[in-house]
């Protein structure tokens, strides 16, 4: 089922992809706050990448080793599943050998998952987990929202927020994808405490402009952001808007820090050259470099 035929934005079914080291049961538990937004089905997935079990060139992979890794993953998932079942959740599992991106896309399609969660720890640890390239490829190829979940660095330690959606920072550019992000976030009224809506204006937009013109630009951008805040407020979610000027990646990260955000939400995939620019650089850089969990939402 593709984006054109998918049902309304929601968070009912989560595909939780883990290698265990980067996303453990604590991460899964913290995402159960989404029950307040209708989450009722968790599909656990572990992909054993072929190179972990590969034999010499041309000889395929070591099936005994693969079987051992499968059983180890299965033991973990059974433990997690028992706990989830006892909370009344529906649970499924996939433990497969193959290419991470292809397998995740296949499982998401099979399950008709509403969104995908994948882990990424600190940059220094990244080589042990899913590579940044895999995550970017996944983002490019999927038509589903992807949450790149990370531990937040706080006071020298890495921790997970109790509610990763509590203080969400939504970066908007009014592309179809960022408007789709608004639709998704609307469903979080029992989960999100506050949404900070931000837009980063490029310095070039101000170049050579008079003070009046700059004030006019500010007024226009704020007005458009206020409209988005009104949508959230109408759903009962507290929302404030903020305009930044500068390099988008730095400013989004700065805003996340200033508002003590628990997550950054960005739109993805668009067709216009402007949106492509946003997509090609900003979400990619935010996903790769940000210290915050990032939810990337495609246009619907």
């Amino acid at each position: 089922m593709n984006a054109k035929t998918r049902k309304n934005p929601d968070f009912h079914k989560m595909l939780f992809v883990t290698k265990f080291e980067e996303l453990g049961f604590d991460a899964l538990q913290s995402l159960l706050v989404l029950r307040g937004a209708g989450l009722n089905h968790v599909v656990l997935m572990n992909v054993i990448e072929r190179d972990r079990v590969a034999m010499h060139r041309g000889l395929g992979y070591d099936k005994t080793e693969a079987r051992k890794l499968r059983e180890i993953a299965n033991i973990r998932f059974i433990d997690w599943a028992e706990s989830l079942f006892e909370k009344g959740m529906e649970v499924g599992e996939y433990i497969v050998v193959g290419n991470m991106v292809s397998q995740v896309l296949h499982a998401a399609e099979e399950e008709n998952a509403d969104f995908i969660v994948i882990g990424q720890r600190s940059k220094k640890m990244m080589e042990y987990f899913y590579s940044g390239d895999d995550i970017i490829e996944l983002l490019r190829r999927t038509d589903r929202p992807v949450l790149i979940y990370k531990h937040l660095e706080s006071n020298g330690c890495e921790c997970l927020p109790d509610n990763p959606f509590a203080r969400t920072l939504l970066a908007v550019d009014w592309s179809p994808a960022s408007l789709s992000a608004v639709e998704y976030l609307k469903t979080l009224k029992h989960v999100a405490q506050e949404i900070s809506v931000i837009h980063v204006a490029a310095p070039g937009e101000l170049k050579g402009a008079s003070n009046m013109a700059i004030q006019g630009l500010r007024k226009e951008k704020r007005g458009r952001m206020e409209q988005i805040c009104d949508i959230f407020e109408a759903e009962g979610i507290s929302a404030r808007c903020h305009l930044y000027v500068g390099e988008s990646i730095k400013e989004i990260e700065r805003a996340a820090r200033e508002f003590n955000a628990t997550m950054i939400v960005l739109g993805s995939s668009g067709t216009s050259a402007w949106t492509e620019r946003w997509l090609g650089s900003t979400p990619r850089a935010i996903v790769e470099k940000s210290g915050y969990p990032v939810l990337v939402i495609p246009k619907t």
Partner: protein
Amino acid sequence: MSKKVLVVDDDPDVRLFTQTVLEENGYTPVLAKNGEEGEAAVRKDKPDLIVLDVLMPKESGIRLYRNMKTDKKFKNIPIVMLSGIAEKSFLRSQKVLTEFGGDPVPDPEAYLEKPVDGEVLADTIKKILG
């Protein structure tokens, strides 16, 4: 005519093992690899008993069990749960789902934790089917 037993399990090794046990004991196995396929097989093949795993893709055994036991057409089909999930967790989940507003369901006819001995499985099925 031999009795039909539906085996619902995503693990091909378990399906093969159970199929062999069933055939050796004179039953006709019908195989399904997840809850969704299992539910379709129940409607199509009308089995005399179901051997059901819990943790599976697409639709878990918890959901299929519930759907069967709350459907007046199928609620009398005996179900043997065969799973790595502890019986205690299975029973708690059903209790919670009932508390969430679902219909109450009876306990399964038998609950076997994996791995199971072939004789134990065969004896359990024989006791139920007579």
